[in-house]
C-alpha cells in the first residue's frame, strides 16, 4: 500500500470512529440517565487513579476509629453525602440513580480497595466530570474528611439502627417532612388519607 493510500485509510477510519462516537453521544441527547459502558467505567477509574497524586496514597488516617468519630462521620454523611450516595452507600437515591456517571456503591470492592489517602483525596478534591464535588478548603474539612474515610470503611457493616439514626439527619424539604408526618400519624392509628394516584413518591 502506498503512503498516500495509508494516510487516506487512516483518515477514513478516524472519520468513521468520530461518526460512531457522535452517533452514540447524540443518540440519547447526552442524557445523564444512560449507564456508562464497562469500558468507559474502566477508563474513568484508571483516569482517576492517575489523577490522584502518588503521595496521597501513602497518607495515614489520623482520625482514630472511635465510636464518637464514627458517629460524627455517620451524621455528617447523612447530612451532606447521602443525597447522592444514600445512607447505606449504595447510591440508590433519586439523584444518584440519574447522575452520569452514577455514584459507585461505596460498599463494594472497587471503593473499599482504595487506600485511605485516596479516599481522603477524593473527598477533599472531588472528581472532575462527575457529580462528586470537592469538600476540602473549609476550616476543619480535613479532620471531617478523615473521619468520613473511617465511616466509608464501616459502611459494609452499617447496622439498621445506624441507618435509621441517619434518616433523621437527611436533609428534607417541607413536603417530605409533611409526608413523613402523615405516614407516621397513619402508623400510630390516624385515618388513612386518600391521595391522588402517583402523589406518593419522591
Amino acid at each position, binding site marked *: 500500500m502506498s503512503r498516500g493510500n495509508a494516510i487516506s485509510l487512516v483518515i477514513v477510519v478516524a472519520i468513521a470512529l468520530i461518526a460512531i*462516537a457522535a452517533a*452514540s*453521544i447524540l*443518540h*440519547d441527547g447526552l442524557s445523564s*440517565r*444512560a*449507564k*456508562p*459502558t464497562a*469500558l*468507559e467505567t474502566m*477508563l*474513568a477509574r*484508571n*483516569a482517576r487513579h*492517575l489523577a490522584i497524586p502518588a503521595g496521597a496514597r501513602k497518607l495515614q488516617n489520623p482520625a482514630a476509629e472511635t465510636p464518637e468519630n464514627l458517629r460524627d462521620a455517620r451524621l455528617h454523611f447523612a447530612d451532606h453525602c447521602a443525597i447522592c450516595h444514600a445512607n447505606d452507600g449504595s447510591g*440508590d437515591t*433519586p439523584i444518584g*440513580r*440519574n447522575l*452520569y456517571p452514577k455514584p459507585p456503591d461505596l460498599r463494594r470492592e472497587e471503593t473499599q480497595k482504595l487506600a485511605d489517602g485516596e479516599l481522603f483525596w477524593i473527598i477533599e478534591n472531588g472528581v472532575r*466530570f462527575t457529580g462528586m464535588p470537592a469538600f476540602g478548603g473549609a476550616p476543619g474539612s480535613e479532620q471531617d474528611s478523615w473521619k468520613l474515610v473511617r465511616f466509608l470503611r464501616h459502611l459494609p457493616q452499617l*447496622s*439498621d*439502627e445506624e*441507618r*435509621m439514626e441517619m434518616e433523621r439527619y437527611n436533609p428534607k424539604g417541607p413536603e417530605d417532612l409533611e*409526608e413523613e408526618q402523615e*405516614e*407516621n400519624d*397513619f*402508623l*400510630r*392509628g390516624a385515618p*388513612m*388519607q*386518600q*391521595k391522588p*394516584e*402517583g402523589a*406518593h*413518591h*419522591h
Partner: protein
Amino acid sequence: MKTSTRTKLYGLLAIAAFVASVALAHGDKKHVVGTLEKINADSVVVKTAAGKSVEVKLVATTIYVWHAGNEDRPAKVADLAVGDRVVIHAAPKGEALEAYEVKFSGPRPLLPKS
C-alpha cells in the same frame, strides 16, 4: 510517564468518557400506604386508602422497621402480620414494585430491642 504522553492519555480518556451506551434509569421510589392484606413468601399485598390491592415484592435487601410511638426499631419479615398498618417505600422494577423499606405498626406489644 512524560507530560505530553500523559496529556494525550487524558485527551483519549476524555473522548472515551463521552462515548456512552443507552440504559434505562430506575423510576423514583413510590410510597404504598395501607393495611397488610396478605403476606406471601416473597411479596406482600397492601390494601390502600383507595381500596386497591397493591402487591409489593420483598427482596433480600428490604429493610423492616417497627414503628411505635415516636420510635423506630429494626424488625424482620417474620414480624409482619396481616392487618398491620404499613408504609412501604418501593421502587418500580418493570411492572412490579420492589420494597426498599417496610415500616409497620400493629396491635402487638413493642418488639424487644434486637
